[in-house]
């Protein structure tokens, strides 16, 4: 949570737009199952919103295989920094 605060903030905005959850308790270990409305359809909608917001493209494999929000933020961070 201490790393990439700007990514966490943007992610909250995206989740608010797509899922309508405003004051979400987002922790690194949070998974899709913990968040109401985060199903296979909205997952894709969230992923494409992330791509647009951070201007990069997920790899096909990454689109469906992410364990938790912490891993997602780490992945975004690495891609935005151009380290991957």
């Amino acid at each position, binding site marked *: 949570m201490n790393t990439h605060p700007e990514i966490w903030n943007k992610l909250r905005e995206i989740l608010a737009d*797509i*899922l309508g959850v405003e004051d979400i308790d987002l922790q690194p270990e949070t998974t899709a199952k913990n968040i109401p409305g985060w199903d*296979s359809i909205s997952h894709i*909608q969230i992923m494409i919103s992330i791509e647009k917001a951070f201007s990069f493209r997920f790899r*096909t494999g990454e*689109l469906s295989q992410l364990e938790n929000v912490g891993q997602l933020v780490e992945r975004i961070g690495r891609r935005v920094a151009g380290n991957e």
Partner: protein
Amino acid sequence: MNKGEVMELFKRGELGAARAKLSAELQVCDDYRAWLALARELKTMDSNALLALGTIPSRVALLGGATLEMIADPLRLALAAAGFAAELLVTGYNQFLFEMLNAESQTVLFAPQLAILVLSPYNIPEWPSPQDDRAKLEEIIERNCAFFLDPCRVLHDRTGCDIILNNFHPLPVRSWGNLSAKLAFAPENFLLRLNLAVGERAPSYVHINDVAGLSNQMGLDRWFDSRYWYVAKQPIAYGCLAEYARNTASIVSALLGRSRKCLIVDLDNTLWGGVIGDDGIEGIELGEGSPVGEAYKAFQTYLLELKRRGVLLAVCSKNDPAVAELPFSQHPEMVLKREDFVAFRANWLPKSENVRAIASELGIGLDACVFVDDNPAERAEVGQAILEIAIPEMSDEPAEYPRILDSGRYFEIVSLTAEDRRRTETYHQRQTATEIRASATDLSAYLRSLQMRAIVRPFEEIYMDRIVQLNNKTNQFNLTTHRLTASQMRCMASDPTYVTLTVRLQDRFGDLGLVSVFYAKVEGSTMTIEGWLMSCRVLNRSVEQLLANEVVKVARERHVAEIVGVYIPTERNGMVKSLYLDLGFMPSGEKDDHVYWRLPVEEAKTCETFIETGGL
């Protein structure tokens, strides 16, 4: 996207204004996330918000060889913005054949008016191989056409629904390289042929959503993102879903008669560069020789093409009238001529007043008009005064004008009728006739002088497109304003319990085409008039009296004792409020917004008409 304003208007219950704002916002926003967020917020505030925004109820089934959930909300928004209260049935991934062929599928049970079929090249069952000759290739194309069109026929026969079928976007790779342009069996070449064949073989109830053209316009690399096809079976990339939804909604609008009819244009810096009053005929920029002049000429050429397919053109300019006419009479590069316009207003009044005057002069609604002006202040003035009008955001770059107007899809049509091709001419005839009437003191002498002749016939297949168009576009002289699809009207034509009639009219100025539509249901000894409407260009010509006489004649032939007339008031059809009274009907009570009238056939008198029947 400015969500806030749409939400605020909706909250205040100003639904018309909310819809107008929504439509304007969706027109210029391509951000899928913003569309989803707006749809979600509206639904959170009121679960029926998207239905409440529209006024025309419709039932739409979404089917396809793709995942459809991602398309559903953008489509709901675009349909609401176009004025439809669309109930949307979203079916499962790749279930389209089952849904169309099974007599008890949820689609059939849903009884849609309209089915939207989302397909991609990955749904094509059969591709040619390099050893296939031309005959084999044709067979493969035939079989593929049948694979998609036969289920459409089955669904149509069962439910009567119209079907919007998309054609195929090109493939992302060209395995045969440039040579594929010469090889009929190469996949890219084959797809072009298949698209043409599907379009040519599509029956009248199948409407092509031209995804091939759309993906070309957007760029195939933007249109198709293979990652999302593999992960989510999404054949349209998210950045293009807004455009897909707008395009699809425009076809629905055309099908249900909501397309616009008239384009009202400014002159200075819209049709030519510069100000005619300041720069003079030598000073304005138009035509070959200057790049800017070429851009304005191209815009005029585009407008002329619109006119040729039935769009009415009108001028609304802040100018001295004589000065505004100058380029039309004196500039050699003017593509548009004075007679291409059915109305011409050049004065110093607020433009909103002129726009209202033009619509009323032409007898069309403000919701049938599009206003084009390079000046943002004029656009704002008209937009604030008239919610229903469409106002594309013109830039200050004339080279972009045709594309900006084109991308609004205001004038989408699903078929082309003979009336479309000569609409401007017809309006001119009507104006000449109006002028003669203004000078004639005796109305009946005037009507006789028109030497009108009419043919009254049941609905006939050759006129079906026009019948449907008139039924769905007429607002003023329309007793019940029932909007129906071509299929529904064909059913009526072949149903022996229905009496269907049309009037074709001619006068000494020319052929006015098919101008009136009538349908009534006979049950026992009662005939109930469910629909009666007439084109406003033949108002006060005694067409309704002629038709009333014919209706009584048919009623006698069918041993009907009583004719029941129904009037359903709308904001627009006040002119026919007392039609039945004028034709000798007696009031018969009111119920649920319906006003009933009755006419015992025995007591029916012949109405005075100035039109001869039989033989044009």
